Structures are given as C-alpha cells and as structure tokens.
C-alpha cells in the first residue's frame, strides 16, 4: 500500500512540476507551484525527513505562495500598462527542442551512473552523529548537526539570507518615488481572524523553535512561521511596516551578530572557532536559535514588505478604520 502511495505521490509531483512549466498563464503556474510545494512536503515526509517537511510546509505553502502571488500582481499591473505586449512573448518562435532534451537525458544518465557506481562511504556519518550526540547539548540529531557539528553551514546560510534582503532593499524605490496609494480596504472579518490567530501563530512558532532541541523543528522553521505571522498582519491591514522599519534593521543583523559573537568569544577561551564549551552547549544553542528565529523571521518578512506596493490592489471598498 505504501509503495502505491509513494508512486502516485511521485507522479503527482512530476505532474505539478510539468504544470508549472507548461502553463502560459502565470497565475496558474503560481497556484500549481503552491500545490507542488505541498506535495513536496509530503515527499519529504515519505523520505523520513520531517524537518524538511516542516520547513517546506511553512515556506512552500505559506511564504513562497505569497511572494509569487505578489509578483504576479505586480507583473500583470505592468503588462497592462505596457499595452499587453505579452502576446508576442507568449507565441515566440519555436526554440530548438533538442538542447533541453539532450541535457536532460545526459543528466539522467549521469545521475544513474552516480547512484550505480557510488563509492563506499569511508565513515558512516549517521553513526558518528549518533555516537557524539550526547556531547552536542541537544537530543535531535538534525539540530545537533546544524548548530554544533557543522554550525558554519548555518552561519553562512544566515549570511546568504542577509545578502538577499539587502539586495531586495536596494531594489526598493526611494520613498519619494513611490506612488502614494490608499491603504487596502478594511475587512472586519479578516481583521478579527488575524487578531485571534496571531497569538496562536506566535506560540506555534516558538514551540517549533523549542521542539528543535528534541524533535523535528528549529530556528528556520520557527522563523518562517514568525515571518508568516507578520505577513498576515500586514495583509490584514495592520500598520506593521510603519513603526517596525527601524526595529527591522536591528533584527536583521541580530541573529548574525549573536551567532558570530558567541562563535568568536569561545575562541578567547582557547577553543577553535564555533565550538561550544561543555555543559553550556544546550543553553547556548537554544539562545542562538532564538535569536536566529527572530532574525530569520524578520528577514523573510522584509523580503515581502520591502516590495513596493502597487496601485492595482483591491482597495475601492469600505472605509479604512484602522488608520
């Protein structure tokens, strides 16, 4: 039964991927991609990787969808202004088909070969992790690897996210260039839901962070939920970005700085870079993770909020109560 499940799941994943690529309607491709994200989360579940499933559920089903919908809204607003030239793009002359086909087949053969002739691993990494997990300060192997055994990976990931958001902020038009647009219509039902759902989101985000020490969860997943909560808040018409702008910059640097400070300050005690003193590892990891969660949440949120708002938003109905 589970084999049938896996086969159908894999086929469905391919089907949605095909749908994303073959759809000429951008919005359809975006919704297909949301479906793809959900199926991918299920695939991670079936591959025994609930950590990734959690991250994919938070990022794929929540944030990526929002970012893409926003992008499509921007794009369609622009193409309308440009007199619908997109017809030319859609029916562009046929590109040669053999190039992608050959490269795909080649890649497939290479992958097969890589699987067939893979070398014997000289050390068994899972065994090493299992043997050393007692020293890592946490009980969940994934968190132990990410924040203790190979913590420079996580450090660099944060750096990458930071760079991404700096680029996003650089692309943002200056404040005076932006078209002043009326705030979106006030929707009491959405407003009410947000006011009640947000504390729950906060709790769940922090729970996922806490859970990272013992079971699937962690800073990245918690941060994604935090970011989603902030996005929700902004979409529902609460004025988040207005007074949060300065806090945002602080939060953006926070995770990185704390990580770096802890990593360097242990060197003062004569230890190598990024090793934790015995006995404190658990607490230190949790502290770093908490800061990372905040930082990741703010970074992901600002990827959304730094978008210039466009004038095509649905906003011609009702009075604006919360302004």
């Amino acid at each position, binding site marked *: 039964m*589970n084999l049938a499940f896996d086969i*159908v799941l894999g086929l*469905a994943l391919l089907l949605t991927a095909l*749908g994303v690529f073959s759809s000429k309607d951008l*919005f359809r491709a975006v*919704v297909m991609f*949301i479906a793809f994200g959900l199926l991918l989360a299920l695939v991670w579940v079936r591959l025994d990787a609930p950590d990734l499933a959690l991250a994919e559920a938070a990022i794929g089903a929540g944030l990526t969808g929002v970012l893409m919908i926003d992008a499509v*809204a921007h794009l*369609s607003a622009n193409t309308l202004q440009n007199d619908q030239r997109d017809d030319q793009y859609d029916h562009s002359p046929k590109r040669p088909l053999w190039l992608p086909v050959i490269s795909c087949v080649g890649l497939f053969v290479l992958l097969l070969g890589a699987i067939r002739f893979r070398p014997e691993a000289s050390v068994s990494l899972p065994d090493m992790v299992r043997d050393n997990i007692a020293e890592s300060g946490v009980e969940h192997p994934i968190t132990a690897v990410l924040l203790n055994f190979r913590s420079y990976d996580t450090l660099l990931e944060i750096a990458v996210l930071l760079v991404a958001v700096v680029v996003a902020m650089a692309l943002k038009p200056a404040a005076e260039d932006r078209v002043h647009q009326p705030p979106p219509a006030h929707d009491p039902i959405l407003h009410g839901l947000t006011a009640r759902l947000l504390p729950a989101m906060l709790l769940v985000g922090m729970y996922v962070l806490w859970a990272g020490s013992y079971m699937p969860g962690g800073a990245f997943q918690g941060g994604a939920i935090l970011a989603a909560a902030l996005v929700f808040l902004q979409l529902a018409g609460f004025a988040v970005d207005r007074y949060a702008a300065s806090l945002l910059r602080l939060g953006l640097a926070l995770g990185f700085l704390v990580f770096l400070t802890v990593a360097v300050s242990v060197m003062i005690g004569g230890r190598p870079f990024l090793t934790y003193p015995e006995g404190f590892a658990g607490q230190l990891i949790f502290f770093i993770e908490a800061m990372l969660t905040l930082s990741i949440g703010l970074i992901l949120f600002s990827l959304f909020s730094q978008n210039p708002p466009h004038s095509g938003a649905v906003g011609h109905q009702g009075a604006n109560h919360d302004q």
Partner: protein
Amino acid sequence: MIEAHTAWYLASFVLLLTLIAGLLRIWHGPNPADRMLAAQLFGTTGVGILLTLAQAMQMPALNDVALVLALLATIAMVAFVKRMSPQQGPTKSQPEDQP
C-alpha cells in the same frame, strides 16, 4: 483483518487521490479565484493526509507539520484577495484556458 498501518496508508492514499483530482480545477480555472479555491482545498486535504500519515508511519512529529500547514494555508488566499486584481490578470487571454 488487515494491519492497522495499512488501513491508515489506505486512507491517506484516498486523500491523495482526491488532491490530485483537485489539480484539474487548478488547471482549468476558469478564473483565478477558482484556482485559488482549489489551493485552499489542498491545504485542508494536506492536513488530512499528514494526520493519517502520522498514524501510518508512527511519527507524531507529523502532527506538528499538519498544525503548521493548518495555520499557514490561508495566507496565500489572503494575499490573493488583497493583492490580485482580476481585471489586470493575464487570465484575460481566455483561448488557452480551454482544455
């Protein structure tokens, strides 16, 4: 009497099939709201699949994944309603929407 976990797999398999059938609505539309509605269906069905898989695979952590999915499944919908305006959408070009 089939084994318990097989029964749970069966349930999640049925749910997966309904989810795949929902892809048809995403593909055919006809308008963005219909597609978004199908995505909403995916959220609820995905929660169902995760809950049954949690039983089938004896992995309680999947309940947390389901919880996160339940919390966040609406966000895409809210973004759509707030940001997307159908008058401007590329969906105006109807011909290619036909099956």
